[in-house]
């Protein structure tokens, strides 16, 4: 079988996903131009249907705002995946990360700039602890990490809700959240007078991408993690501490999710939350990592893509396109990547024609398949 690059497969999947969305819109009897317009507006703020409408930054910033947490959770899932682990515990790790950040943001007095950094570190540590539990159980007790992760999600949900009510100052007006974080802890908006909650937390995502790339591709630690991920027995045989790698990888993966939770609390909400259900950022991370091929640049790009599909939801609805269309596109993309075989088949069909042509022309050189 020919091998196609991950990038190519992802691009085809994305293309087909959008095409599918357009077809559905047409079949549903809605105006597909509106879909196009909503997507363009979500990226640039420019409304092609109403060129006179003033263009503002708010759409673009909202897009980026949505991309930040799912890029971080994508890094989390990707990091574990490279070590051969499936971190489906992102939800719990986000919750504990956010709650830890809120606790530091509410209870500790620190100067500005230092304060959010300490909050972020607290969030990362809490996430790491939450990831460490399935990691250690997997490494030393051979217990399936997926099961433990799912249980840790629910433990996280109830534990953070209890902790917040018991230990943090609750807002008496609603009794459903904490009071606002201390001014010093909040990650401020990047553009103060644009009505988007896009905040300095985006720097965390960018640093996260660089750190992910550096650890994975450049360090001996990343080398041994990748070896463990590809062939655990082989890595063990080469004398690597496979168990330690597994536990550490889940911890780091958990830390990425913890950061995502902290960024949401510090940048977007500005208060500690008492959640009764998951926000699904962790699950979104699975899609992001999958489409991004679990590497740093890929995760950045797919984080932006999924962020766009999410931020487009509002514009879609305002342009009379059901928001489910964007969910549909996401689903198609994920399905296609999960069943890569279909995409490979498509590509082969396409290349097959090219092959035959080359033979008839008696060309010496083969095509450029990888």
């Amino acid at each position, binding site marked *: 079988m020919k091998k196609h690059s991950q990038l190519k497969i992802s691009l085809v999947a994305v293309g087909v996903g959008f*095409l599918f969305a357009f077809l559905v819109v*047409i079949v549903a009897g809605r105006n597909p*131009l509106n879909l196009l317009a909503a997507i363009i507006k979500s990226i640039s703020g420019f409304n092609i249907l109403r060129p006179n409408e003033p263009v503002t930054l708010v759409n673009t910033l909202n897009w980026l*705002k949505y991309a930040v947490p799912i890029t971080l959770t994508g890094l989390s899932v990707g990091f574990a995946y490279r070590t051969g682990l499936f971190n489906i515990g992102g939800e719990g790790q986000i919750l504990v990360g956010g709650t830890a950040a809120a606790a530091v943001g509410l209870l500790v007095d620190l100067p500005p700039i230092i304060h959010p950094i300490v909050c972020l570190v607290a969030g990362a540590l809490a996430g790491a602890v939450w990831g460490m539990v399935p990691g250690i159980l997997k490494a030393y007790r051979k217990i399936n990490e997926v099961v433990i992760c799912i249980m840790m999600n629910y433990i996280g949900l109830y534990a953070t809700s209890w902790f917040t009510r018991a230990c943090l100052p609750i807002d008496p007006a*609603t009794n459903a959240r904490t009071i606002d974080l201390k001014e010093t802890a909040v990650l401020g908006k990047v553009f103060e007078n644009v009505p988007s909650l896009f905040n300095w937390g985006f720097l965390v995502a960018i640093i996260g991408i660089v750190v992910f790339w550096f650890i994975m591709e450049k360090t001996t630690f990343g080398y041994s993690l990748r070896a463990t991920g590809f062939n655990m027995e082989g890595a063990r045989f080469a004398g690597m501490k496979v168990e330690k790698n597994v536990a550490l990888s889940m911890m780091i993966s958990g830390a990425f999710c913890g950061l995502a939770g902290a960024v949401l609390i510090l940048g977007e909400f500005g208060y500690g939350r008492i959640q009764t259900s998951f926000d699904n950022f962790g699950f979104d991370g699975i899609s992001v990592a999958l489409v991004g091929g679990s590497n740093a640049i890929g995760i950045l790009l797919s984080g932006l893509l999924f962020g766009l599909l999410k931020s487009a939801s509002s514009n879609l609805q305002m342009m009379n396109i059901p928001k489910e269309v964007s969910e549909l596109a996401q689903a198609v993309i994920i399905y296609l990547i999960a069943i890569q075989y279909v995409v490979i088949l498509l590509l082969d069909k396409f290349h097959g024609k090219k092959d035959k042509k080359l033979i008839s022309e008696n060309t010496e050189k083969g095509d450029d398949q990888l």
Partner: protein
Amino acid sequence: MKKILKVALAAMMTVGLAACSGTTDDTASVTYGFVTDTGGINDRSFNQTSWEGLKRYCEEAGLVENQDYSYVISEKESDYVPNLTGFAGQRDLIVAAGYLFEGAIAETADQYPEQKMLIIDVESLDVDKYTNVQQAVFNEHEGSYLVGVAAAKMAEKAGKDTVGFIIGMESETMNKFWAGYQQGVYSVNPNMTILYDNVNDFSSQEKGKAAASKQYDAGAYVIYHAAGGSGMGAISEAAARREAGEDVWVIGVDTDQYEYGKYGDGTQSAVLTSMLKRVDTAAYNAAKAVAEGTFEGGIVRYSLADGGVGIPDENPNMPDDVREAVDEAYNAIKDGTVTVSETYVKE
């Protein structure tokens, strides 16, 4: 592949042009936007009801849905601000229901001080600062008093001494339901036992069902739920028990939930009555006020006296004598002989 693309593009262009030619952009009509919370537009509760109120006015005014007025569904809490700002500057009035919107409304109003907005169930925003935000609140304690009377009367009639209450979450607003209900029950019989459960969730039918099951097992004859979507579980538990021959009742909240309690062949319902909270009226009034130029910011309070809270006119399951007792209580509150406290603790 290419062919499909071409066909798709061609189709897109035709439909697009057709759609464009049909509409004109410069209508002078008033426009409205509605943002749901994470419950969605068909939540059989808050979002749905307030949207229906807004819609009722728009239809009366002859406006076109999706052009002059439309809604946007929020998936997550972090969608609130983007969804509100999406409408901001483009619609004359934005309506959002639920105290969860408090922060998001404030954020939007900070950026769009001229934007008229209606938020339901919030009264904590600074009225001097947010002059274009109308905060609509309801005297839920008054309505809850009425259903408390109904629950206690029903229990007495059946020779029972226990009723139940399920709350979706404890907060200042929510506690008004509890306060009013207690006062209503005790006004009938101070020795009545009231079971209390907090499910801490507005959207888990399962939790609501479990709490109701627990209370019925503990002897509750009527349960009043103030738990949004979770309360649907309590209603279905009651319906299931009635179908199995048990004699229990449930009281709905926000809207007339009689429909949701139907069981068997659909001619009977387990819902005794419902505590109506006319969020639709609030949305309707605000929409109308904007069109007529009389819209004002600040807190607007809807009480039992002006029809903001109450019970439905038709309650097929309620015996006449119970209804009489409820009407009596209604009149007493209306003419001021009885005052219902927002915060009540039984001595």
